[in-house]
C-alpha cells in the first residue's frame, strides 16, 4: 500500500482548507434553505396552496445543495487520501464508515429536495399533491441535517487540509 504522506499531490489539495471553509458556509446555507423549504411546504400543505416563500425556497434549497455537493466532490479526493487512508482507516474505521453514510445521506437529500422543487415549481396543487411535496422536502431536510451533523463531527476529528 502507498504511504499516504508519501503519495503525490492530490487534486485540489492546495486549496483544500479554503474549500473546506466555503463547504462549511454553504453547508449552513443548505441546512437553512432546506429547512425553510420543508417548513413552507408543510404550511402550504396545511393550507392546500403554495406561497411565494415556498416558490422562493424551492429555488434556493436545491441550488445550495447542488453547490454543496460540487464542493464536496472537489474535497473528496483530498479527504480520501489524507484523512481516510492516512488516518481514519487505521485509527477510527467506524468514523470512516460514518462519513460514508454522510455521503449517501447527502446524495439522497439532494434527490429528494430537487424532486420537491420540481413539483413545486411546476405548480403541484391540491391537498394530496402539496402533501407529497411536503413529504419529499421534509425527508430531504432531515437527511441534510443528519449529513451536516456527521460532517461537523468528522471535520472536528480530522479536518481536510489539516496536519
Amino acid at each position, binding site marked *: 500500500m502507498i504511504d499516504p504522506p508519501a503519495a503525490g499531490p492530490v487534486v485540489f489539495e492546495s486549496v483544500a482548507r479554503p474549500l473546506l471553509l466555503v463547504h462549511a458556509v454553504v453547508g449552513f446555507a443548505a441546512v437553512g434553505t432546506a429547512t425553510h423549504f420543508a417548513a413552507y411546504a408543510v404550511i402550504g400543505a396545511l393550507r392546500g396552496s403554495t406561497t411565494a416563500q415556498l416558490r422562493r425556497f424551492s429555488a434556493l434549497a436545491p441550488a445550495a445543495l447542488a453547490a454543496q455537493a460540487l464542493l464536496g466532490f472537489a474535497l473528496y479526493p483530498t479527504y*480520501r487520501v489524507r484523512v481516510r487512508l492516512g488516518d481514519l482507516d487505521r485509527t477510527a474505521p467506524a468514523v470512516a464508515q460514518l462519513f460514508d453514510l454522510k455521503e449517501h445521506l447527502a446524495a439522497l437529500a439532494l434527490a429528494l429536495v430537487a424532486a420537491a422543487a420540481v413539483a413545486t415549481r411546476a405548480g403541484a396543487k391540491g391537498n*394530496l399533491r402539496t402533501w407529497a411535496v411536503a413529504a*419529499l422536502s421534509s425527508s430531504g431536510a432531515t437527511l441534510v441535517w443528519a449529513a451536516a451533523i456527521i460532517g461537523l463531527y468528522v471535520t472536528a476529528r480530522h479536518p481536510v487540509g489539516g496536519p
Partner: protein
Amino acid sequence: MTEGPRGAGSDGDVALRAALWGVSGFAIGYLLPGALRLPVLTYDPIGHAALLTAAPRGAQMRYYGDVLWACAAAAAAALLSRALRGRPLDVPVATAAALSCVALDLAWFLSRLLASLQ
C-alpha cells in the same frame, strides 16, 4: 386514490409524477451498483486515473460513479414516467413508493455502518 379537479395530464401532475419516479430511480440506481458489486466509474486520487471497476482498492473512490449511476437511473425513470402521461396520478401510492425506495437505501447503508462497528 386520485385527487384534484384538474386533468390527469396537467403540467403539475406530469412534473410530480416525473419527480416521484425520479426519486425512486435515483434511490434504486444508487443502491444497486454497490449492493450487487456492479462495475462503476472509479477515480484513483493517487494515480490520477479513472477506471471501471467493481472492487475499488486503497484510496480509489467509487462515489462519483455511484452518483452517475443514480443520476442516469433517475433520468431514465423520469423519462419513463412520461409514458404514463394521461393516466390519473395516484399521489399517495407514488409518494410512498418513492420514500420507501429511499428508506431501503438508508436501511442498507445503516446496516453496513452497524456491521462495521462489530
